[in-house]
């Protein structure tokens, strides 16, 4: 019962019931109307034929007298499918008839019988009652003549139609019920699945997703949407969790160090100069912790995608040019050859601040890790160009590079490769770059800068130390075989609208 009620509560089932009812009523009305009009047409035809016959018989009586009438009657009665004929005396006694018996009182009335009357037939042995309509006329000598017609045909028609109607209505109701059961049960089943998944998700199984059958129906569409939403929530949740984990694990260490320094300064407070220096260090450390903290917040904010709404159309070429201009003197000061290759009019939907910071992080990294032993051949190469309908924003160096097995790991928070542990840094720079790339619908890729020297000859050339200023490629005679690192932001170009 509960189940039936649930099925009835489904919109589709309710609608189909309503439609079936309306359709049924219309069908019944239509059939009734058709039957009635057909029956009345048939009756009209019967009445016409009877009228004609009576007129004919009347004519015979007038012309040939009773004898002529009888002869005519006899002939008519003998014909196949004959009408009913009864001739009586004025008293009502039957003189001649082609039926055995007739409902009493019928012959006494005049004109059309008001309703079908019953009669029995000869030569069929049975006492079966048949029904007919008839017209009765009085002859001038007082005799009465009845001419009638069996109603078999229209009645049979009515019965056939009625039976057909009952059968088809029954069939319709049957199919309807079957459909409701199937549709309703299916819908219920799907809803049950969704409900169960939801319960599991609420119970904490955040990896659970709503079932998608692949039928492409409204349930699938809804489930897909909900799954996308769940994915996003999971991503936000994951980001939040990671931040708190990071804070727990990676901020505790510097905080402990900080505390120790303060402790030591307090312990050896006799020397105010040393205490001062320790406090100075405490401030530096604190600043570093704050920076780390801010970077973490920033990354999770970017990763959550809440900044996606603030992406605007901007000129990436100009943006890259600005950052390059900021770094060019620094690179040269540090003994790096600076190269800038900038395709003009690269349009993108983006966040200027975040993209600038991402590029700045890549430049910082190149300057930090891109040193070349012996001090010669270091370079910072910034380029931005269209490539396969996308925009590739690249920062290259001639440093030791990153082994390809580590490419994935370096973008994780707080990852610091062995070689870099001695250098200052918090291991968050590339995490932010990757988050910025993803926010813009792009990716962060790494490659060995000098893997394809043939394709990119300028990349491996040596620049003499301090050999002038200004951008542009500087070629030296001796090629350097260093893996180098090429970090690329591959971003979707703004769609041409």
């Amino acid at each position, binding site marked *: 019962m509960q189940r039936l009620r649930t099925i009835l509560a489904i919109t589709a089932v309710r609608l189909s019931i309503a439609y079936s009812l309306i359709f049924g009523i219309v069908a019944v009305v239509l059939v009734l109307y058709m039957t009635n009009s057909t029956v009345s047409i048939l009756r009209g035809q019967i009445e016409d034929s009877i009228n004609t016959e009576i007129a004919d018989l009347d004519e015979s009586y007038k012309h040939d007298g009773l004898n002529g009438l009888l002869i005519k009657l006899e002939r008519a009665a003998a014909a196949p499918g004959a009408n009913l004929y009864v001739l009586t005396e004025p008293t009502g006694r039957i003189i001649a008839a082609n039926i055995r018996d007739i409902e009493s009182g019928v012959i006494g009335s005049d004109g059309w019988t008001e309703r079908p009357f019953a009669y029995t037939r000869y030569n069929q042995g049975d006492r079966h009652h048949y029904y007919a309509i008839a017209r009765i006329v009085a002859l001038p000598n007082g005799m009465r003549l009845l001419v009638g017609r069996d109603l078999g045909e229209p009645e049979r028609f009515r019965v056939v139609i009625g039976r057909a109607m009952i059968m088809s209505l029954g069939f319709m109701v049957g199919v309807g019920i079957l459909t409701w059961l199937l549709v309703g049960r299916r819908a219920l089943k799907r809803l049950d699945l969704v409900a169960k998944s939801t319960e599991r998700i609420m119970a904490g199984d955040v990896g659970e997703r709503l079932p998608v059958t692949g039928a492409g129906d409204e349930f699938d569409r809804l489930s897909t949407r909900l799954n996308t939403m769940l994915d996003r929530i999971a991503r936000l949740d994951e980001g939040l969790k990671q931040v708190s984990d990071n804070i727990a694990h990676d901020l505790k260490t510097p905080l402990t160090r900080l505390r120790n320094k303060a402790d030591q300064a307090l312990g050896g407070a006799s020397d105010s100069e040393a205490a001062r220096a320790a406090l100075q260090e405490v401030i530096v450390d604190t600043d570093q912790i704050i*920076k780390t903290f801010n970077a973490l917040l920033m990354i999770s904010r970017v990763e959550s995608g809440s*900044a996606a709404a603030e992406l605007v159309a901007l000129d990436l070429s100009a943006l890259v040019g600005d950052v390059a201009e*900021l770094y060019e*003197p620094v690179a040269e000061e540090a003994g790096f050859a600076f190269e800038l290759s900038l395709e003009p009019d690269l349009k993108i939907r983006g966040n200027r601040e975040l993209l600038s*910071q991402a590029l700045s992080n890549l430049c*910082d990294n190149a300057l*930090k890790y891109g040193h070349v032993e012996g001090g010669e051949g270091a370079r910072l190469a910034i380029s931005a160009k269209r490539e396969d309908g996308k925009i590739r924003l690249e920062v290259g160096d001639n440093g030791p590079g990153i082994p390809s097995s580590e490419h994935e790991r370096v973008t994780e928070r707080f990852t610091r490769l062995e070689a870099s542990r001695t250098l200052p840094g918090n291991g968050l720079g590339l995490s932010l770059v990757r988050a910025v790339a993803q926010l813009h619908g792009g990716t962060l890729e790494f490659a060995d800068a000098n893997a394809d020297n043939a394709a990119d000859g300028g990349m491996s050339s040596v620049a003499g130390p301090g050999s002038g200023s200004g951008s542009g490629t500087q070629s030296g005679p001796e090629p350097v075989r260093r893996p180098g690192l090429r970090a690329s932001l591959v971003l979707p170009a703004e769609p041409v609208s």
Partner: protein
Amino acid sequence: MLAPNPSETTFKVMRILLVEDDSEAAAYLTRALNEAGHTADHAADGEEGAHLAASGRYDVMVVDRLLPKMDGLSMLKQLRASGDVTPALILSALGQVDDRVEGLRSGGDDYLAKPYAFTELLARIEVLARRHRPEDTETVLRVGDLELDRLAHSVRRGGISIPLQPREYRLLEYLMRNCGKVVTRTMLLEEVWDYHFDPQTNVIDVHISRLRAKIDKDFDQQLLHTVRGSGYILRDPGAASERPFDRNA
């Protein structure tokens, strides 16, 4: 107006309104501002802040964003709506770009994310207090014998023309407009490059040293000085500094 105004580079006592609900932070700031030679009044919530600010006695306001009774942004909006133009610096734990934009739209003139170094705060409010003075419209800026023509976009020192890159020009212009005030690296990044992040590399230092090589190197008197732990200052050698608190120490 062409002659440099001596008072321009002379230290000036500022009256500062500090609207901050954390009493410890407020006490620290008040003491530090007093040590720097300024006077500070403290309001503990937005309503009190709005009430005090309405007196119009202050050179600059420092407003915390999250305040009891009336938050800092609402307070500023209310003040701006009533025609108050006292420069305001918003302090906030929210330091993202959109938070900053929201703060500036609400009537703030500068935005500083917590936690901050006091030198950064001091440098910013000293620059803010100067902003609303009329000489911002001057076409020629002068510091000592250094001359910057804003119409011709040209720089001369002692009559010798010094060619500058566009960014160097903007850097110098900002320093000259704030002559006698310490400007921090962050302020330069924000004002000259419009970046609100801190690059790990010492990018600003390198740009400053390039500029210094152009405007100071061939001259006897140095104008552009580094202030350790804070930033840079462009000083007019002719104007005596009466700053009671020497931040070069």
